[in-house]
């Protein structure tokens, strides 16, 4: 099992969610996060003086897939739908998952995903 963790622009969440649902992955968890990469925040102006918003709002989207499933279509779906081509589009991280437990039934492993 693997976890796909994508940090994306907040305004791209619906588009990415729809693409993942079409692929057959309706389950996901979203977290509102803040961060910056190489783009280093955003300069704004307040009554004559400029200031930098160091950390910009982003959304962290997480979903876990079974062993048999390839992560490639998921990664493609996220990159295609979250991309604007500008700095700040975000990143995708893929993690190995040791165990999954469904709280309602106590099922473990692939069946719990």
């Amino acid at each position: 099992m693997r976890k796909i963790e994508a940090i994306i622009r907040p305004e791209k969440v619906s588009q990415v969610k729809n693409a993942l649902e079409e692929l057959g992955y309706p389950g996901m968890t979203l977290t509102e996060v803040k961060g910056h990469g190489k783009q280093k925040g955003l300069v704004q102006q307040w009554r004559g003086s400029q200031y930098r918003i160091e950390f910009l709002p982003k959304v962290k989207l997480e979903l876990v897939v079974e062993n048999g499933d390839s992560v490639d279509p998921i990664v493609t779906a996220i990159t295609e739908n979250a991309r604007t081509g500008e700095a700040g589009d975000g990143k995708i991280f893929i993690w190995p998952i040791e165990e999954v437990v469904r709280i309602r039934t106590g099922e473990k492993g692939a069946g719990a995903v």
Partner: protein
Amino acid sequence: MRLSTGIRWSGRLSVIAVAVCVGLLAAASPALAADPAGAETLSENPNAPLDFVWIIVASAMVFIMQGGFAMLTAGLCRAKNVVNLMMKNLMDFAIGSLAFFSVGFALMFGADRGGILGTTGWFLAGDNYDVSQYLLFLFQVMFAATAATIVAGAVAERLKVKAYFLYSIAICALIYPIYGHWVWGGGWLSSLPYGVGHVDFAGSGVVHSVGGFVGLAAAIVLGPRIGKFDLKGKARAIPGHSMTLAALGVFILWFGWYGFNAGSTLSALELRTSVIAVNTTMAASAGAVSALITIYAITRKLDVGMALNGAIAGLVAITAPCAWVEGWAAVVIGTIGGIIVVLGVLFFDRIRVDDPVGAVSVHGLNGVWGLLSIGLFADGTYGNYTTEGPFVTGLFYGGGPDQLIAQAIGALVVVAWAFGAGYILFKVLDLILGTIRVPAQEEIEGLDIGEHGSSGYPNFPVVEDVPYR
């Protein structure tokens, strides 16, 4: 106009009956009868109800400017301090109006002693228990409270609320009324031997410069907010929490300003009110446009905060000359006001004075500009709160430099008086209270929790990172 306080003020009221009672007859028979019911005033001046309706409406319009200042200050400051700001904005009116009622009004409008102070009318009692005096008080108490509330912005986000309460008493009982007496109460500035004497129609100097320069003194005594200047001393922006509230505040102020300026005729029978209202509008518009263009030229950003300040700057600048200039001059006065406010905000940032809402640039600097502009642009068509002469005439209309000299003297005096008195006041408060500034940790966490134990927006966390300490 300047024979005595009584006559001067009655003239401004245009209530003939009162002019006769308070002025001329006062000299002959000092024990004149006040008119607490209003029947005599009405029978002697059937037009009095027009004046009463207009002045009460105008007073209410000036009152709502308190709400404008509250929203403007709240919007330009951070969410963690709004409870404290609302407390200060409410209490400077509540405490200040009690102080003005008890002491301030008598010092400002009581019988003149040596051109320096008024000495009668404490608590609006005795002969001041009179419908015309109560009417005058109602309008004037709004002005006193306006001067008081201007300072709230300059000291925002770091002044102890107790210090602010004591300051509110001092400005409404002493600082504002004493200077006010010199200009509006028959004092020495109004009888300067230049032009018609120093004049200030609705209070660019009496209200706005007083508030602005007391605010400057307070901001200097207090020192800048934590995080306002970086380690090299360069100013950092501390963005407020709501441009929406700030804009609402400006629109409320602009609305109220029609009462502030046009109400200052103190009479509905002075039809100059329409000229005043148009001048008020044009100066505000010109100020907003010129501030926007000025800041765009400097930073290449269409900065709404500056444009909002520019509108108020235009309003402050036109407050003194509003009754004595033509429409085009109001546009010029407002345009220069908009430039002054932008340069002022950048200047005070550079010399490391932290004025969170720009009160000193908006009210202090533009108040002075408004006073001076009379000496340049007054067109000689309107007298001293009356259609009769002597008319107020400035340099550009063949009046020579005399009126400008009177205006410059008044401007120097208001800066010296307000800054000096404000500086001493806040230094003394600092000694009495130990310090007038909240502890550093409280400033970082917000004054709402530390001073009041409550939060302006309880469902939202409002504490932010402080990069420079």
